């Protein structure tokens, strides 16, 4: 990933030296041309073509913003309801993610989802303990959301 990006920038500099013009326009042109070259030679790299990963990061960002807005609407409904009739609790969620930064990202994402807040992570990084504001009607729906988050994060890190 990082290697492909560095190679792309290096080829853009080669383009600038070939065309003897050192402006940002020629850098961008060289960047796009060498992107096409990298795409043509993608089967020689061990990892995926890196634009896939850039797209995955951007879609994860949009997922983040969408979940933040949904969470706020849910919190508004909970707070402004005249009777406090929700049932909070802490449940355990097993996760398949392994590296530390993936788990941090998942925990942040869960904290910003409607009605959930990460309270603790087990020492072997396999279970997240989540405080949910309303356990009975949300448990399964939340698990479903978690699966989509985990998939989106794996899409980035794979």
């Amino acid at each position, binding site marked *: 990933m990082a290697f492909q990006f560095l190679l792309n920038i290096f080829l853009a500099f080669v383009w600038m030296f070939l065309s003897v013009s050192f402006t940002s326009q020629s850098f961008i042109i060289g960047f796009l041309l060498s992107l096409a070259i990298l795409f043509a030679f993608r089967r020689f790299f061990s990892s995926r073509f890196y634009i896939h990963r850039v797209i995955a990061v951007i879609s994860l960002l949009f997922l983040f913003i969408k979940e933040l807005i949904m969470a706020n609407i849910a919190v508004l409904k909970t707070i402004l309801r005249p009777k406090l009739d929700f049932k909070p609790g*802490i449940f355990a969620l097993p996760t398949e993610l392994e590296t530390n930064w993936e788990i941090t990202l998942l925990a942040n994402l869960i904290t910003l989802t409607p009605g959930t807040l990460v*309270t603790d992570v087990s020492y072997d990084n396999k279970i997240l303990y989540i405080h949910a504001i309303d356990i009975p009607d949300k448990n399964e729906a939340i698990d479903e959301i978690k699966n989509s988050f985990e998939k989106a994060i794996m899409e980035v890190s794979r």
Partner: protein
Amino acid sequence: MTEIIRFLIGFLLIVGGFLSLVTAFGLLRLPDVYTRNHAASKSATLGVMSILLATFLYFYLEHGHFNSRLILAIIFIFVTAPVAGHLIARAAYHSGVKLWDKSVQDDLKNKKEYEQQNSN
């Protein structure tokens, strides 16, 4: 066009102020630390973010002044607010703060046993 932009800026300001107000209500009304933390870590984040965004848009589109520090502030708040919520909830749990008495489930109690089982 400028009218639409002004409408958008005003809308963002009102939403931000309203969300901050609701956060304050939540902190007063909700029963225990953890549920209050829900209100504080979500509504306050989006409220402050939308006020900062409105400030950025106002100075950029009305005065032509591009202030990149506001964008950095939005990103920093977006990244740090959930971590702060998590740390407060974790510290509260480990110093023995009880859940609300209407809570139905507490899996974190079993954490010690789980870790003793898996440490061998």
